[in-house]
């Protein structure tokens, strides 16, 4: 592995970490908004169940999105 390779791997790692942080913070915020709306906001019944399902599906989507964007980062930096 050349010095250039090491540097590009480091850049990839940092970019992916930043991306992961942004997505994780965004999701956590949404999770706590969901949470607060039920515990303190009086949301209940079918809407509460739909919101719960949406938060689960959104979590799956975020992980998939992270995977796709990471592949893009790896491709771009290595080129």
């Amino acid at each position, binding site marked *: 592995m050349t010095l250039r390779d090491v540097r590009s791997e480091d850049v990839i*790692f940092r970019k*992916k*970490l930043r*991306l*992961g*942080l942004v*997505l*994780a913070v965004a*999701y*956590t915020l949404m*999770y*706590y908004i*969901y*949470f607060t709306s*039920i*515990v*303190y906001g009086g949301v*209940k*019944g*079918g809407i*509460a*169940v*739909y919101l*719960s*399902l949406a*938060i*689960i*599906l959104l*979590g*799956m989507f*975020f*992980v*998939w999105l*992270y*995977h796709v964007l*990471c592949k893009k980062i*790896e491709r771009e930096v290595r080129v």
Partner: protein
Amino acid sequence: MSSTFNVEKFVGQFKPLSLILFALFTAIALWITYWSAKRVREVSHYYVAGARISGFVNGMAIAGDYMSAASFLGVAGLVSFFGLDGIYYAVGFLAGWILALVLAEAVRRAGRYTAGDIVTSTYAAKDVTIIVAIATICISVFYTIPQMVGAGSIAQALLGIPYELGVLIIGTLVIIIVATAGMVSTTFVQFVKAFLILAAGVILMISAWILLGNGSPIEFLSKFIGSEVSIVKAGKSVETTGIGFLSPGHRFPNPMDIISLSLALVLGTMSLPHILIRYLTVPNVVEARRSTLFAVLAIGTFYVATIFIGLAAAILDTRYYTNSNLSAPLLAAYVGSEPLFAYVSAVTFIVIVGTVAGLMMATAGALVRDLLVKSFNMRFESEKRELIIARGAAIAAGIFAMVMGILARGMNVAFLVGLAFAIASSSFLPGMIASLFLKNRVNSKIVALSMLVGLVSSIILILLSPTVMGKAAIFPLSNPGIVTIPLAFTVLGIGVVGKK
């Protein structure tokens, strides 16, 4: 909506078909163990399967590890008894995976054999290694107890065999799997188990949609909202409406309790040692990321299923009022009669084997690598010798799990898992964050102190909580996460500021 379903026909009765299916799954697990045993020649094979597992297999194995008896029986049961307060668990268990986006690849870079390596790769001081080992063992014990309790209650209620015998069967099977081929057999047992339990969850969910919503989840929920449903409190059914059932406060009247639990679930998932060591079994960071993707897709689908299973069990009243853990298998009996009931019972039983095997691997690694090798500087004359010691540690951990399983009879399994998450997020997470992202900004004494504060405070507050002390509780919350997590991170933060 009520049904004339007779739960007594299925609970506590000897079921030959369930036992035959369980014997079949056990035979598959033992064959995997026999096949794997030939592949374990070095220490790295035993602890981390030689770091040669693909992202897909590891992702499904992570899912298999995570989709435990507590998830399947406990969460579905809590939803069927308490509605929305049970759904929080399903959402929280999945939401915690979002931290994997930040931690998974860094964990793979830092770790070698054990979860403790992730912390000690930066902070190798003796005080840190000892606390890391103790924290790993404590978390694994708190996570193992509910699994073994689940094993005993399923054995008794669904297979018709005594509670203690169920615990002994599971414990023995786990010891064989872990002591023979370590992480190789554990991985493949968890891989197979993931598909079995996912199939059980999806079959039950779709059956519920067909039965109550003409195949549509939206129609299912509409019907649920418009129906009379009962909440189960203290073993008694209390009638309410669909909307009343899906209102918060049936299990946690104090909102702070829910916030504390959610904090522990979100921050605890990626701090569980048996999950962290799974990331050390893949060859590189790309496979670690792929592992997360497959794991989260499987786990997300599973938790969507547990919500619908719990709601269907409530509306059809396939609940055993004195044991919330039986709602899912009894729903299987309702929708698919004896064959589906037998499948779900046998799968749930084998699911525990996979989860406990993962926990025993984490415990054995902590005992041998973190405690003996790193903390007490013990050196083994050969790899073969270390393998023997590691296998001995796994057997000891398995026996301990069996004893604890028998002593903790009668506890709700999902609830106890919530406590394991609180300990993990209060003790392991500060150490991991310091090791992976703070490096030289804080010294090892502070890292050890923050982990110790998190560990000790969470155990003390659990002992003072309503979970242990009932109405005489000194600490009002069931889950201590809201106090202990900020406390541990405050100590770490003071260390960072102090070093500047």
